């Protein structure tokens, strides 16, 4: 294989190296690629919002389907722009309150359902050592998150078991995620050595 002659491969490779140069220290190459990444991502997001929200959810329903109900969320959305006008900025609190309130309300039923599922999943139907360890782990971890009780005496001992279970869980999650990150890094190195420099096939 030979070194790539595609301009896009060269741009991607140089930007990759610019981002990796941050591992040494902040430098003009990193600053350049950082600004490109941030700028392009903002432009892309604005474009996505314009097509997927303003056109698909406001313009089309209003103009083509004559669904005038969309005027309500449209007004709520427009109220966000009141922040640009001194003295009227307080109006932006209305859509924020609506979004926060709706979000909390919607998350409550699903949180309960998750709670039920976890309680149900912890009660063992088959007796194995694994199931007993799960039960001890769940109980002691739950007790660790008691805030109105001092972690002393028997509660203190149980919470130490709980935090041990938490740390074992974190260790396993850390290892699994690092493996995934290393595979991403390998992908980038393959791109640099293969697609760009042509050293490996």
């Amino acid at each position, binding site marked *: 294989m030979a070194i790539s002659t595609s301009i896009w491969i060269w741009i991607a490779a140089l930007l990759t190296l610019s981002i990796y140069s941050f591992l040494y220290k902040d430098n003009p190459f990193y600053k350049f690629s*950082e600004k490109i990444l941030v700028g392009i991502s903002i432009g892309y997001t604005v474009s996505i919002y314009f097509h997927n929200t303003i056109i698909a959810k406001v313009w089309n329903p209003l103009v083509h389907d004559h669904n005038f109900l969309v005027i309500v969320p449209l007004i709520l959305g427009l109220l966000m722009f009141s922040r640009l006008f001194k003295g009227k900025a307080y109006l932006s609190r209305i859509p*924020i309150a609506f979004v926060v309130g709706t*979000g909390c309300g919607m998350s409550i039923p699903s949180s309960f359902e998750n709670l039920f599922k976890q309680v149900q999943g912890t*009660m063992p*139907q088959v007796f194995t050592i694994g199931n007993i360890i799960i039960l001890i782990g769940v109980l002691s971890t739950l*007790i660790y998150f008691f*805030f109105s009780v001092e972690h002393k005496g028997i509660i203190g001992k149980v919470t130490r078991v709980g935090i041990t279970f938490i740390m074992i869980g974190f260790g396993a999650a850390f290892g699994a*995620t690092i493996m995934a990150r290393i595979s991403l890094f390998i992908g980038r190195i393959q791109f640099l050595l293969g697609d760009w420099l042509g050293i490996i096939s």
Partner: protein
Amino acid sequence: MKRHLLLFLCMISISVFSQELIDSTNVALIDTAITEMQHSGIVLNVCDTPNDDGTSITIKWDINDSLKGYLMDIHRIHGECDTAIALDMNPEKGIHTDNMVHGGTNYMYYALFKKDDIVKKTDNSLPVKAIGQWFNKERFDSFIVLLLIAGAFAWFIYLAKKGKSFYIRKIAGLDAVEEAVGRSTEMGKPIMYLLGIGYVTDIPTIAGLTILGRVAKKAAEYDTRIMVPSYDPVVMTTAQEVVKEAFTEAGRPDAYRKEDTMYITQDQFGYAAGVDGMMMREKPGAIFLQGLFFAESLILAETGYSIGAIQIAGTTETAQLPFFVAACDYTLIGEEMMAASVYLEREPLMLGSIVAEDLIKIIIVFVLIIGFILGLLGHGFKIGFFTDMFEWLVRII
């Protein structure tokens, strides 16, 4: 020339005739199939999907032995429009949900069963329309639990309002908030507060905003600059409000700088790159990472560590907590984040809700222990009564 013309006409008539023959064969085949289908008694039962928002229709059918090994297509008819909504399905599934319908519009459905060259068709279903329901009856149990939990919260808040004092245990990471703000002040460096890449509807983001209020108040009292680079515009707007209010509460509204709570980008790694750059240039003395974090968590925490900032992290994302534990000075694990604002302010009202939460956890612990004992006696020792009790408990949950 005449011969060629005759040959051409002959070929056209043969092709037209053969096409008619094929069509008539197909029609005959389908007709036969329809007759077979009607005899076999396959009927599509089509109804509005219950407990939904009125955007789906459920199609059910019972398969018989004569249709084993067939593949099934389902078609939706709306006016003149005939659309295939499912292709090559296994008919033994017995149910399909059409999620691509408009509420209040009449639709009809039919199915085709295919095997080799054989095609069998059902009758068209009766017209049906999707209607949204106000209440999801499947979540009635959640509603009951919600009432109980809300009752517990109301009771403890009432007690707190009456003046009953509640204890809250020490949370290590939060004792360090004052230390972190003080350290930044002494060094003459700003504080950076990151709310992660959650939206304002995410509970960790809301908890992060509450903690931001307390941190911003401390920063205002110490006359230290606080920067809040944001991922989402609505989170940014909310954060601006929170910081402004905190500065006003601290008696320093003049020190509030709106531009310090800024929008970066809504791209995950664009946000990480932008914040990393800011960290390297502004060199904050303390960094708070409180909110919803995903793959960018280690990138941010490592950069913060490399500039020597004191870091206090907190998230409910279990996959990211290990990175914070490894790279930050203090980490609030899961619910500690929710308790943080109570710990920092010690408002009696919020203390009441923490105690109510603990009560609910105690109930869960008891349910788990009872479930364990019933399971041990029922499934372990095979005592029928306890097996029934265990199954009953699982069913209730």
